[in-house]
Structures are given as structure tokens and as C-alpha cells.
């Protein structure tokens, strides 16, 4: 019975210790990876800038569309 207890205790100590060691290493590995990627392959900040461009372009497109449609309606009424 005491044997079972000590088995449980060692499982707790080693198990918890290992989980911490593993995740600590993962923290470091992730940190190194993030730094490396930031250096080697920095992300081009294109998507952030392109968004406003689209936003501005959209109303312009709408104006054009309205113009075309108005013309088409006029054409239709004349006929």
C-alpha cells in the first residue's frame, strides 16, 4: 500500500516537473522562432495599407455604377 502511495507521489513530482520543463522549453522555442521569423522573413505591411484604398475606391465605383444605370434607364425610356 505504501508502495502505491510512493508510486503516486513520484508520478506527481516527475509528471508535473516534466510538464513544466516541456512548456518552458516551448516558451523559449516559440520566442526564438518569432524573433527569427521577424528577422528573416518580416511580413510586408501591405494588407494594412490596402484596406483604406479599397474603402475609398468603393464609393467611386458606386458613383460610376449609378451613372451607368441612369444612362441605361434614360436609354430605355427614350426607346
Amino acid at each position: 500500500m505504501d508502495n502505491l502511495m510512493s508510486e503516486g507521489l513520484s508520478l506527481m513530482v516527475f509528471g508535473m516537473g516534466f510538464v513544466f520543463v516541456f512548456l518552458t522549453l516551448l516558451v523559449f522555442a516559440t520566442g526564438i522562432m518569432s524573433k527569427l521569423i521577424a528577422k528573416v522573413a518580416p511580413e510586408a505591411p501591405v494588407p494594412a495599407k490596402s484596406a483604406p484604398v479599397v474603402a475609398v475606391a468603393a464609393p467611386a465605383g458606386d458613383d460610376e455604377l449609378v451613372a451607368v444605370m441612369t444612362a441605361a434607364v434614360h436609354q430605355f425610356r427614350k426607346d
Partner: protein
Amino acid sequence: MDKLMDLWHASGVYNITGGQAFMILIGLLLLFLAIRKNFEPLLLVPIGFGGILANIPEAGLAMSAVENAIHLGGPEMLSNLAAALHISSTEPEALKHAYHLADSASHTAAVYAANDHGFNNGMLYNFYLVAIASGAAPLIIFMGVGAMTDFGPLLANPKTLFLGAAAQFGIFATIMGAVGLTTLGLMDFTIQDAAAIGIIGGADGPTAIYVASLLAPDLLGAIAVAAYSYMALVPLIQPPIMRALTTEAERKISMVQLRHVPKTEKIMFPIVLLILVALLLPDAAPLLGMFCFGNLMRECGVVDRLSDTAQNALINIVTIFLGLSVGSKLSADKFLDIQTLGILVLGVIAFGIGTACGVLMAKVMNKMAGGNAINPLIGSAGVSAVPMAARVSNKLGLESNSQNFLLMHAMGPNVAGVIGSAVAAGVMIKFVG
């Protein structure tokens, strides 16, 4: 008249035992909780229904061919089985016992003897063999979970991995609880049983089923039901513990916006994790390997079709069979046992300790970071239960400060908890498997 008597003797009403009737009621209770109370319905509906099916008298849906033969076969069948198993007694109990202990050769001989007499595995037993005994279903679900997981919040703040580690203490503390109960003579758990019960504290259904199927298949039904019930109860179990361990000022702490994580980092993370697993803990490779694979499919962006299947169609199909298979383990002779009660109690303790440790770890990290950087409420999300635990953190944060949205901050420890419990599972399989 004889025909009428035959029909009566073959009916369920004539054959049902008290245990089966009780287990059918348990199955109905699970269905009620799932349908009316919305407790993890995706799993509890199949589990509850499977439990009812498994307890239909005389149908033997959850029994193997040999068990069916022992139960339904005549004297000739029993003596054939006794010969196959090399024992002299033809008592059903002795045969069952010998069948469980038999080596592969006599095991196979017994199966052939049963097949020769026209006895086959029950439907649910076949599902169990394919889905759980093979280890396939929990792993495929883990792949789907990987495909659904966004590691962005974790990558933006990798330190939250420590919270995912701390919350795993519930698992190991519960092992001590189970072992202690055995030492006191109240229960009878082996160290394998204790490990499988502890994993309930990981709050991760597929991991719990995977570990239980390897370490303690007899307890699988109770462990799976406990794990999924407590996951559904996260919003009830966690808040009192979180409130008790934090001050109002701590709950008000608002955290800085997370940085943007570039796509390359998200693609590389599952590969880094996989390499670390390969180097340090090959026993966790099945679980974390499938998890990383699923996540890579999601993030790489070139196999959207596969990723879509893994996180929708495939995981749904597997969930159906996994639920029915777990239900098949809810047969009266295996579930109605004092040990089940012990498992239910230990499971909720595991959950509570895990939550508390996560919160305490977050408090320590907050102190180390100057006292105003980390809201301790996100610590409780270190138990996996994605995304429920993170939502609970968010809700409590909003109660104290209505402008404080902790959801994304809590997702970091939440997915870290998935990794943490898979690592804990690997350690336990390594040590006691």
C-alpha cells in the same frame, strides 16, 4: 401456448435486471441533460443513447462474441469455451474471468468457438473496437481540434503557456487522491486507474478517453462521462473558485492589446511543437502529432479542403461513433460500482484544483510583471475545455469591469492547456503504461 411462453421468455420485461433498468434511467438522464439543459449535447446525446442500447436485455449489443456465447449459449457451448480456454469449470463467471485473462492464442480459440456456434460481437462492441480500442477516434478528434485551434493569442503572448502548465496540477493531485483512497481501503484503484482518473482534471474529452483506453479500459465509461459532464459544468464549477482566489482590484486589471501574429509564425508553430515532442516525449506523439497535423492543415492555407473536412464532416462522424462506443461502456455490470462514485468525486476535485492552480499561477506572474499586467482571471482558462473556460474568464472580467474583454487573452492559456494536458497524458503513459 408454448409459443406464447417462448415469446414471453424472450421479452425484455422478463429478462431485465435491476441494474439494466437503472442504467437505462441513467441513459435517459444523460439525454435529458443534453436536450433540455444543453450540456455538451454533441457528446451526451450519442453517449446517453448508446448507454440505453447497451442495456437492452438479451440484445447483447455491447458484448463481445464470447460474452454473448457465455450468456446465451447452452451447456455444449459452455464446455466448448472451457476447452478453448483450458479450464475445467463451465460456470459463466469462471469462463468470463478466464476469457479476460487469456493469452492471445486461447482468446482467439474462444472467439472461434463462439463464432462456430453463430455468436457474434454486438454492434456497439464492434464500434468500440474500431473507434476506441484501436485508439483511432480520440486521435482523429484531436486532429479536428487542432484544425479548429488558432494559436495566434498564444504566439502573441507565449508566457501564457505557464498557465496551461500550472492548471495541469489538478491531474497529478487527483492521482494522489485516488491512491490515497486506495491506501485507506475505501476504493481499489491501481496506479494505472489513478492516472486515468486524474486526466479528467485536464478537462479534455479526447485526451481522457485516449488515456483511459490505454491505462484503464474498465473505467472508460465512468471517466468519459465524468470528463464530458464536468466540461459542461465549467461555467458552474469555475467562477466560485476564481472569485475566492482573486481580489476585486485584480479582476479589474485590463490587459494590453495582443500584437499581430504573422502568418509564417502560425505555420511554423505546429512544426516547432512537433519537433519538441519528437525530441523529448515520443509517448505524447500520437496525441500532439495529430493535433499539430490538424493545425498545420489549417494554417498553411493550401489544403483548405482537408482542413474543412477535419474540423467539420470528419469530426462529426467520429463523434457519433465515439459517443456510441463510450455509451457501450455504460453497461450495468461495469458502471454500477462504488468506484464510479469515487471517479465522479475525484474528477470534480481534479477540476477544482486545476482551476485554482491556474489562477494562482496567473497571480504570481502578475506580481512578477509589476502587478498590473496580467489579469489572474485568465489563469483558470489553463484547464483545456476550449473555448468554454476562456468564455468564463471573459464573463467574470466583464462583471468587474464592463470595458474589459479578456476573451482573446484567455484563449492563450486555453490552448496552452490542451498542449499541457496532452503532455501530461504522454508522461503518464510513459510512466505507468
